[in-house]
């Protein structure tokens, strides 16, 4: 496409949306010499992928897949994450856009917060947790999820007693670093960027209006995302699937496919592309969690059109015993005493209608573009299709109707994680083609101090991490630190609440210099998560980064 960019091209880009699409696009741009503002409307990046348990077709743990990317994005010198923010206005031309960002207050000072959790512990106000689909409560002072990026608490302004009624204020009193800041105000930021990428993702189309399925009325009818949270270890029931009505394990679970998809009567005639696969995955996981369970999927067509997908469905059927019944269910009945659900279907072998009873029913709801996108599309004058998804061009599949504004992920069409990651790369390529004359120009770079001369004898520093309560809840930290001091060559031992937090890393750097430590052992999570992080601390302190060892006491002990 002809480069119609303004001669003064900005080497910065704006990525709107911090889900997997936005994260991947930000990384693909920042790693090729551009500065990226990553905008996210909630308090943490991660999007829907952070809410999933396992992902098809490999059954990889979703958080394990996204965490390394979250860490990369958090640490990247050239990615600036702006949470609680939205794009208010876009003016200018491709290559030289002026954007206006509206940032809502977090009411917590990010520089001071060490994510200790004391505010949430003391907070008296409970609200249904949207992350868990309302199946559990969280406090008004909260962390979106345990691996949130940025790992900083936030205060829910709508529900905070102090902010709404001037009462309470307990969190401010209890915070050990005085990070609570009730007086924070909304901010408006004016930025200049060369390209914009929209990755605002999707939401489920299911609402209380869909009464015929009993959603939000019958307690044991849940949405696909609610069920996903039930399956998750960080979910409302600690990874155990339970009936919301009585807390017991459901033995008979049914999935109803194409709820609000392929449904012309609701003006939602299109297909949401991924529900066939995620239902199969949820059914397989259910059978794994409880071998006595019965998993049944009611479907119209099995859309397993991706690489390895048909194989997955076959294994679900043959190996895991998931029952597939071809029947479009349009209504769910309640058995009031047990709160079981009754599904009426046609049995092809008996050649008549039958009623089948289930303890729990999962609705595989269709997708719609994220609520905020409708507004955004209007303000930016982006063309959408009749169902609100961004329209693109056949020859330029990630271009929106507005030059210099690109799109990726479910904002364009419902799609799965691999296709989203691929599209994010393509959007980055288009943005890069636009602003490439400014490559490397608007990025920040860091100089590493030279390595200093070390003592000949090893002087080992041992840092034991609490990891909040993940390690401290099981391991006696004091005793461990005392023990470490007795080991040969150990010159210093200490402990930290969260070794990976910024202020701890700064402390570590200072200690390495002051105590002339020339080898570091951090007893914490795993090298997979934070080894490069700790190695960079060593480098900043003038120590060779290979003189580092991580003892995985979280993974192996607690």
């Amino acid at each position, binding site marked *: *496409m002809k480069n119609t960019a303004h001669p003064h091209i900005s080497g910065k880009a704006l990525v709107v949306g911090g889900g997997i699409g936005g994260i991947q696009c930000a990384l*693909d741009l920042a790693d*090729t010499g551009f500065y990226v503002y990553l905008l996210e409307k909630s308090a943490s990046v991660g999007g829907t992928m952070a809410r999933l348990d396992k*992902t098809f077709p490999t059954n990889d743990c979703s958080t394990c*897949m996204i965490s390394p*990317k979250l860490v990369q994005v958090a640490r990247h010198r050239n990615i600036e994450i702006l949470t609680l923010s939205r794009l208010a206005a876009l003016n200018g031309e491709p290559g030289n856009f002026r954007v206006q960002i509206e940032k809502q207050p977090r009411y917590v000072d990010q520089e001071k917060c060490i994510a200790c959790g004391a505010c949430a512990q003391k907070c008296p106000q409970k609200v249904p947790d949207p992350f868990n689909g309302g199946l559990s409560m969280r406090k008004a002072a909260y962390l979106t999820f345990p691996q949130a990026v940025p790992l900083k608490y936030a205060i829910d302004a709508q529900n905070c007693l102090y902010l709404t009624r001037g009462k309470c204020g307990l969190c401010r009193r209890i915070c050990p670093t005085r990070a609570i800041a009730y007086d924070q105000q909304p901010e408006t930021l004016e930025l200049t960027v060369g390209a914009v990428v929209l990755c605002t993702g999707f939401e489920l189309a299911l609402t209380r209006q869909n009464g015929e399925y009993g959603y939000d009325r019958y307690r044991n009818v849940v949405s696909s995302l609610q069920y996903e949270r039930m399956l998750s270890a960080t979910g409302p029931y600690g990874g155990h699937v339970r009936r919301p009505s009585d807390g017991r394990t459901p033995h008979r679970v049914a999935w109803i496919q194409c709820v609000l998809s*392929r449904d*012309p009567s609701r003006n939602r*005639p*299109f*297909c949401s*592309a991924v529900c066939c696969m995620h239902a199969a995955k949820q059914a397989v996981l259910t059978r794994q969690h409880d071998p006595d369970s019965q998993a049944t999927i009611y479907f119209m*067509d099995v859309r*397993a*059109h*991706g*690489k*390895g997908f*048909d*194989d997955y469905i076959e294994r679900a059927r043959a190996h895991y015993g998931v029952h597939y019944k071809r029947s479009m269910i349009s209504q769910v009945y309640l058995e009031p005493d047990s709160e079981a659900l009754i599904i009426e279907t046609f049995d*092809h072998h008996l050649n008549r209608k039958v009623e089948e009873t289930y303890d729990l029913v999962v609705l595989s709801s269709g997708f719609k573009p994220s609520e905020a996108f409708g507004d955004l599309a209007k303000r930016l004058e982006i063309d959408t299709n009749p169902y609100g998804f961004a329209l*693109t061009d*056949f*020859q*330029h*599949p*990630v271009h929106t109707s507005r030059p210099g504004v690109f799109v990726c992920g479910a904002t364009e*069409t419902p799609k799965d994680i*691999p*296709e989203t*990651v*691929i599209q994010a*790369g*393509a959007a980055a*390529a288009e943005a*890069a*083609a636009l602003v*490439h004359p400014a*490559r*490397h120009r608007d990025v920040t770079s860091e100089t590493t101090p030279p390595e200093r001369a070390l003592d000949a004898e*090893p002087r*080992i520093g*041992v840092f*034991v991490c609490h990891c909040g309560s993940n390690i401290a809840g099981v391991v006696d930290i004091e*005793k461990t630190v005392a*023990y*470490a001091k007795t*080991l040969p*060559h150990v010159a210093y031992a200490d402990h930290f609440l969260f070794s990976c937090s910024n202020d701890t890393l700064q402390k570590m750097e200072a200690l390495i210099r002051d105590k002339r430590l020339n*080898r570091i*052992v951090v*007893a914490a999570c795993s090298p997979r998560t934070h080894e490069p992080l700790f190695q960079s601390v060593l480098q900043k302190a003038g120590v*060779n980064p*290979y003189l*580092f*060892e*991580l*003892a995985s006491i979280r993974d*192996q*002990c607690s």
Partner: protein
Amino acid sequence: MDLIRASTARAARLEALSDHTYSVTKTGLVIGAGIAGMTAALALADQGFAVHLVEKEGSLGGFANNLTGTLEGNSPVALVHALAERIKTHRNVHLHLGSQLVAHRGHMGAFAGAIRTTSGEEAIQYGAVVVATGGSAYTPTEYLYGRDERVVTQVELSRRLQTDLDWARGLRQVVMIQCVGSRNEAFPFCSRVCCSAAVKNALLLKELNPGINLVVLYRDVRTFAFKELYYLKARRRGVLFFRYIPQAPPEVHRENGTLVVDFTDRSSHQDFGIQLDLLVLSAGIRPNAGSAQIADLLKLPTTEEGFFLEAHVKLRPVEMATAGIFIAGLAHSPRFIEETLTMAKSAAQQAAKILCRGQMTTSAAVAEVDEQKCTACLVCVRVCPFGAPYIGDEGVSCIPPSACMGCGICTAECPAGAITLKHSTDDQITAKIDALLENP
């Protein structure tokens, strides 16, 4: 405590190591000039990088040249023309038609190879590779294909619908069979595009002759996302869709010169026989024959069916496990044109991460050969999954630090114990184990 004791024992024996730095060749290599290859090449060229685009045929466009139109009414041929024009005139693209890559070695950022062109062999240097060797249509052997001119594939029908409208209008009874050469024992994957192709042609036929009797025999209709709207339209226009039983698929035979198809409808368990004018087979997609040669040359893994196997399905869908090599288009898996274009740009962007740098560093935790001990037995050369070791001029194994991924396999396998893995040396490991098993 045991873990910490073990860790401190190793820490005491750690050595300071330096990362290795080398210069990056800021040129890309794209193998295959179909729409995936052309798009990847342009994506790199538009960002200011030089690109070698190597195509074994004498012309550009690959399989897309056989396609007449998409379900949504777009033109693949117009796309091919648009891409070809840009390729031929882009100053950053070095196009090599009628050429093949015949040699390849090196590592990410610094590859060296040779292409055999119509005028001899040319040595080239490149920092990253995008494999876009493409795909082609399965040629059916079932359902009397090739033995009766009334049996055609969707691609053949599409072409005939462009040139022979009178013939098309004269058709009275047409049957389409889905999943031909897909979702079976030999090729268990779904070819993704065929349901849409059938719906597209069904709508075209209905447009030409609303009175036509059109039956589609399918297993699942996979018109996902907004393609569903066209499926809905086809049903509303009176196209009949019947589910067949995969274990008892439709049968085609001739009865007094008339073509007949018999099948059992899976929903009603009723048997049907239809006399037809035309039988259209939705034949699947296969990776191109040439991909095997590239897989061999670049040491890339493939699936059983011959598609290239990416590094990670979710996190790295366009990357190969070997650093610096990327994949796009049908060479990876069956996909629609827009999906191929997207994938090609994405692969190019991953390649750009390498090409945009002046230098690269590699981890110092790499394998080192003690030349005194090496007997050139070739074990390391054979076991390395990344093709790093080679026997150098001195007659002993050389492992370039930038090619080594530090996996340690050669270190463990070397019968002479000549290889050390830096940062995981024997004394570091044994100290750790001894400390772990000590009684405190």
